């Protein structure tokens, strides 16, 4: 199959269609607009529905209803819109409804801007909404992976009956890269005997609910969720490594920034500095297992993020004090420059007592 040139936003849309998603509910926001434009055209071609809601609050609750009805369904947004969806995400987690939410992150806080950012890491990986819950969070770093990750996102959502967030940023949504669409698409959507489709369509009465007023019953649900999250954490941690062989300075970066870090690592290696890169592909569960195993061989870690230092907390937990962990970040929609990342690596290599 020959490759075609696609924008990241379009690749997410096509990936969703190829994953069997037939329902999209959303509200306009930059920089994810092309995703909605793409699906507004594409979904009717495959008998699906694109519905523009009156707000992100309504969008996520339409997702909740469609998921309760057993459909593969998604929404997408950015920054402020994702903030408005937090109540709904908590409900999706509490009611265990499989669904996929895409966040093309932009500069914040507040209205911020429409430039790329990774400042919603905490919101996605640590909760965001109320209550004890986790979303599975996936962070692709190429347009090809943005396409491919959608199938994985829907499969994980169905497998664990859990909301899944796909995180990228404004640049990744806008940038074009060649994409291989692959061969024939065969999607197997598992049967959903729990879905509220009407009693004529399943055994007994189905209820979708997260309201358990008796604390003993609510704790039981919490324990069930905790068990599920532990299983996900054990089975689904994914990361990529780049030039990690013999590395004593290990960069940790996800999404767009990991691409910049690959260049910085190459340049550092050319200068004789043993640098390498770990790229978390799943932000939750965080690949703490793999990172932890590198701690004894690593002199120092450097997380590079488009935020004030959010993922660094998870790297520190994984390293558990066995090596120093530093952070380099650009903020407010600014993208790290390869030269600046390289300078940070050189500082660490040269002893870096002053940090």
């Amino acid at each position: 199959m020959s490759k075609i040139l696609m924008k990241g936003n379009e690749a997410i849309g096509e990936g969703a269609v190829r994953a069997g998603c037939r329902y999209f509910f959303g509200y306009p926001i930059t920089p994810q607009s092309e995703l909605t434009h793409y699906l507004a055209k594409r979904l009717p071609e495959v008998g699906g529905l694109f519905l523009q809601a009156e707000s992100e609050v309504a969008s996520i609750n339409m997702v909740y209803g469609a998921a309760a009805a057993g459909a593969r369904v998604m929404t997408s947004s950015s920054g402020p819109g994702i903030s408005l969806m937090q109540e709904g995400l908590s409900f999706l987690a509490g009611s265990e409804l499989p669904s996929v939410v895409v966040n093309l992150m932009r500069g914040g806080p507040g209205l911020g801007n429409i430039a790329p950012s990774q400042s919603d890491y905490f919101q996605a990986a640590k909760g965001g909404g109320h209550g004890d819950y986790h979303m599975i969070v996936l962070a692709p770093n190429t347009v090809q992976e943005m396409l491919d990750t959608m199938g994985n996102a829907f499969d994980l959502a169905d497998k664990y009956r859990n909301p899944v967030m796909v995180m990228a940023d404004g640049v990744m949504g806008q940038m074009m890269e060649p994409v291989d669409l692959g061969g024939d698409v065969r999607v197997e959507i598992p049967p959903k005997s729990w879905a509220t489709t009407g009693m004529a369509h399943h055994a007994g009465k189905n209820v979708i609910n997260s309201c358990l007023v008796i604390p003993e019953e609510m704790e039981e649900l919490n324990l069930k969720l905790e068990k599920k999250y532990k299983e996900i954490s054990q089975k689904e941690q994914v990361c990529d490594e780049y030039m990690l062989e013999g590395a004593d300075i290990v960069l940790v970066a996800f999404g767009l920034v990991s691409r910049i870090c690959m260049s910085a690592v190459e340049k550092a290696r050319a200068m004789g500095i043993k640098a390498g890169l770990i790229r978390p592909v799943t932000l939750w569960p965080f690949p703490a297992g793999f990172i932890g195993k590198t701690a004894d061989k690593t002199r120092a870690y450097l997380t590079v993020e488009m935020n004030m230092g959010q993922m660094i907390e998870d790297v520190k937990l994984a390293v558990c004090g066995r090596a120093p962990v530093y952070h380099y970040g650009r903020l407010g929609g600014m993208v790290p420059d390869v030269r600046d990342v390289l300078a940070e690596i050189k500082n660490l290599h040269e002893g870096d007592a002053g940090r």
Partner: protein
Amino acid sequence: MKKVFSRPRSLKDVPFHYCPGCTHGVAHRLVAEVIDELGIQDNVIGNAPVGCAVFTMDYFDFDMISAAHGRAPAVATGVKRVLPDRVVFTYQGDGDLAAIGTGEFVHAAVRGEKITCIFINNAVYGMTGGQMAPTTLLGQKTKTTPYGRDSEVNGYPIKVCEMLTPLDGAAYVARVAVHSPKAIIQAKKAIKKAFQVQINGLGFSLVEILSTCPTNWGLTPLEAVKWLDENMIPYFPLGEYKVPPAGVI
């Protein structure tokens, strides 16, 4: 002997948690009777609100979804768009529908969403302990309007049926009450019509049911019925505000 009265099949044989004199139970029963009579128990999906009716999922004997506060019309939209041949309804109180959920029910009506909203207006927040609702009458004392609702501070009670009437997507809009046998018979007719409008694919339907809340009104059940008649009905006139053209249902 011939059995002439029994519990609707769509209602479970469990005691309601509602306070004495509360008319939620009457409204539940009417919805269940209509669902039985239309023969749709196996193809209906209900959406419960946040508020006193949060436990409707335990009372109705068909598939139920618990929605976030105010969001039931959006949730119902998601269900109906995936399952257009099912009957989907919401059951919401005045705080749920007419305050926090104003955007959701209005835009469901704007879209002509083929769902039915059963809207319980008892002029007060019940579950949280008697605070001012968007439908609380001027001068009415609640826990958060201890001196009576003052229009200078809190504005005016919201008239949901009147708001919906000009919207093209709203196919059937009616306001009824459940404070007397006569009113209850009329309420049931309106609920049935609202579901028929949905089944016939005509658009959005909503039935506002004026209800009592003796506990939070600080009245006896009998006084509450009288208060509804004398205070709520003059401000919220009963009737069909929007009906489909003759002959379509």
